[in-house]
């Protein structure tokens, strides 16, 4: 099972050579900042997303059966803060436009520029960190407001 202290990255592509390459590169450059796993079958990715701890998703857009678009929607529904980077063979596809409208954070055209991918993942980690910080602050303010309200009720 994966650690919960670091964001968890799920990489999905139906070409194993792409998975191996991305995992190798990201483990080397960002391996101390996140945990990661890769799956070749989109159905396995659905099952993995449904466990609820995926916060970063890199997925191929054009896969047979379940598409990257399906995974994007599933991940955002499960956890709205999930950062999604799409890999696509073409910028002309309608599905890429749909994906961006549905909240994909970035995309890369294959063959993947590995330095660019590192940069995009790094930026995604920063956005995720800011999102979590904002959530913590919101919850802290809410708890403070509840305490003040409770005190005012107990000591009118």
């Amino acid at each position: 099972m994966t650690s919960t202290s670091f964001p968890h990255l799920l990489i999905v592509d139906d070409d194993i050579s792409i998975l191996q390459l991305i995992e190798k590169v990201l483990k080397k450059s960002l391996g101390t900042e996140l945990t990661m796993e890769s799956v070749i079958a989109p159905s396995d990715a659905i099952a993995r997303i449904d466990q609820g701890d995926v916060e970063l998703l890199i997925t191929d857009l054009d896969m047979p059966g379940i598409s990257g678009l399906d995974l994007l929607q599933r991940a955002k529904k499960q956890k709205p803060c999930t950062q999604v980077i799409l890999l696509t063979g073409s910028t002309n596809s309608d599905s890429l436009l749909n994906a961006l409208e549905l909240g994909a954070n970035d995309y890369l055209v294959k063959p993947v520029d590995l330095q660019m991918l590192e940069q995009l993942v790094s930026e995604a980690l920063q956005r995720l960190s800011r999102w979590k910080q904002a959530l913590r602050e919101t919850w802290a303010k809410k708890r403070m407001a509840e305490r003040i309200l409770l005190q005012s009720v107990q000591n009118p």
Partner: protein
Amino acid sequence: MTNRDIAPIYSTLATDPDFAELVTEYVSEIPDRVHSCVEFVKTQNWPELKRFAHQIKGSAASYGFEQITAIAGLLEAALAKETDLDQRLKIAEDLIDNLSAIRS
């Protein structure tokens, strides 16, 4: 199916210690991929051949084989446009010849 002798094609990443092992693994899987490609051509299974070309286009350059990605892209485009049979076969054979020539 392959007719031409092509000089060995080496990965531009072969001497990079971070990638050498991965490149070797990628190259070791190529004979199986070529076999699949030949079957798709023989059976004129164009959808599978297009998918094959799409995958090779997406991976080869990342492993240091830019020339292969370029040819695979041509094949994918030719299949998408439903160009004539001779043209498809010509590009497919070119891809097979070049894939067969890659070395780690």
